[in-house]
């Protein structure tokens, strides 16, 4: 992740630089975690088959560990996709409109809507987490609090908000003509 040094209007540019630094730091930290989680899911699951079919004694509780890893794998992965701005989306309107001001305005509007929804997602997942903390539900075998897993949604939503704020500011600068389109 190269630090973006293109010129923009002062304050916004400072925020963008800050977010880019954050992005650099966070993605560097997240990637190895995601790799560890991904391989854990695969090998633990395969080991489960081995113990059941070959050794003949199923391992209890393996599934809940794998699922815990999986939730974090999903949400950290979704965060990485936000960082790369590669969330699944359709781009036919921009294709129709070309790359004029109209297209840039639509893009800004779409990003603003996304940002708004990301805030909603954070609020909803905060509610889930606070409920989880309140009720202290645990997994069947090890009694690991489900909130450990549910917190991944909250963390993911935070990443969405940070990266969408960046995208919003960038789109704004593009519309204002202070920045070239990505």
């Amino acid at each position, binding site marked *: 992740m190269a630090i973006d040094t293109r010129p923009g209007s002062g304050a916004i540019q400072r925020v963008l630089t800050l977010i880019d630094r954050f992005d650099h730091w966070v993605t560097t930290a997240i990637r190895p975690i995601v790799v560890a989680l991904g391989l854990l899911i695969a090998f633990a699951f395969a080991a489960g088959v081995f113990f059941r079919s070959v050794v003949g004694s199923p391992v209890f509780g393996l599934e809940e560990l794998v699922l815990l890893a999986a939730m974090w794998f999903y949400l950290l*992965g*979704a965060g*990485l996709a936000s960082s790369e701005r590669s969330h699944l989306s359709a781009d036919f309107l921009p294709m129709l409109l070309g790359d004029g001001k109209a297209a840039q305005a639509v893009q800004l509007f*779409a990003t603003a809507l996304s940002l708004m929804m990301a805030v909603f997602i954070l609020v909803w997942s905060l509610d889930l987490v606070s409920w989880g903390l309140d009720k202290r539900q645990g997994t069947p075998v090890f009694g690991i609090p489900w909130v450990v897993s549910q917190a991944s949604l909250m963390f993911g939503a935070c990443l969405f908000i940070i990266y969408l704020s960046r995208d919003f500011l960038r789109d704004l600068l593009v519309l204002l003509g202070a920045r070239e389109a990505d």
Partner: protein
Amino acid sequence: MGALVAILVVVVLMFLGVPVVFSFAAMTLALSLIYGIEISSLMTTGFWAVNSVILLALPLFIMTGYVLQTGGLARRLIDFVEALVGNSKSGMGASMIVACAIFGAISGTASAAVAAIGRIMVDPMERHGYDRGYVAALLGASSLLGLLIPPSITMILFAVVTRQSVTACFLATVGPGILLMILLIIYNAIRIRMGGERPEQTVPVADRWQNVGSAGWKALPALMMPVIILGGIYGGFFTPTEAAAIALVYAIPVGMFIYRDLDLKGLFDCVVQAAATTGVIMVILVFSFIASRIFTMERIPQEMTGFLFEIFESPTAILVAVNLFLIALGMIMDDVSIIAITGPLLLPVMTEIGVEPVHFAAIIGMSVVIGCNTPPMAPILFLSCRVGNVGMSRVTKPALQLIFFTALPVQIAVTFWPGLSLFLPRALGYL
């Protein structure tokens, strides 16, 4: 009403370029406002739905797809298929189609085949006189065999959102997949023949068999994968999800120590890319499950069934209407969204008119195949263009021709000939 609003919100937002996940979040918000359901507490639903053992097949198959590509398994498979099908001009097209089909029996997604096979085959085919636009279109169409030939994350998604058996849904699309493969090969041969091409046999028969032998030997570790995956599932050794884990755990050492194309850095990148791809789908699913819960709570599918029966008199008319609706939706929506929204919404309608859920799995699977390649929202075709390094304008016409002459006939066959999709699940005792 609710269904209409839901689909409208998603379509309009996606049209504006809002990512699918946020369009879906907005849809659930709209639904919760209409029906006065407190959405924050429904996050529980989204969480439990995604926190599912069956769905673990998604990240596992997606990781496997990347490993096949990076680890050289795809390369060996293609060499083998090329040796097998021959190197005449139409033979190359057939190679691509058959390679995609074999790849389909290992990988759970269509995009893995596009990336792996496209990178290897597009340039040589152009050198042999193929039009690049047509090659990219053919790649897009053939790669979707991967979605029809099990394992298939599309069918896993359908099975999970509609609570059907994954193993049975896997079998439902095999017949349509084989039919599509045959039609693609025939279409390709006719097209090449009409272009004035005379098939030339450059390699003597004896040498050719030797080539097949040596390429087959090199491809053997890769060719073992469908045997392990499908044999394991239908032989009772493991569930489809466990098969996905076994596939990955098998592919990594093959790529690292047998083919030596996969190093630690490569593996690292595979898993990171897979995490991003899976994460995007999973967050979409959180909201699609919440929406689907609201649909059920408010009895929207029943409402819709009644509505459809009011407009159309006969079950056949409803079946045709549903097909048209699915294909139209396929133009503007991606595969995940279509399955996630229409699966739970339309399955009750289908059951009402006497269509088996597993038969509907095949119908919706085929419509996704078509949808993935019809612009404006054509994720697989876009990927094909990117991998084949060719513009959309050159690909659109051959892509639409391919759909019209191959995929569409299969869609019609699947819809009105239930035996095509139900034969295999029935024969193996899954119905």
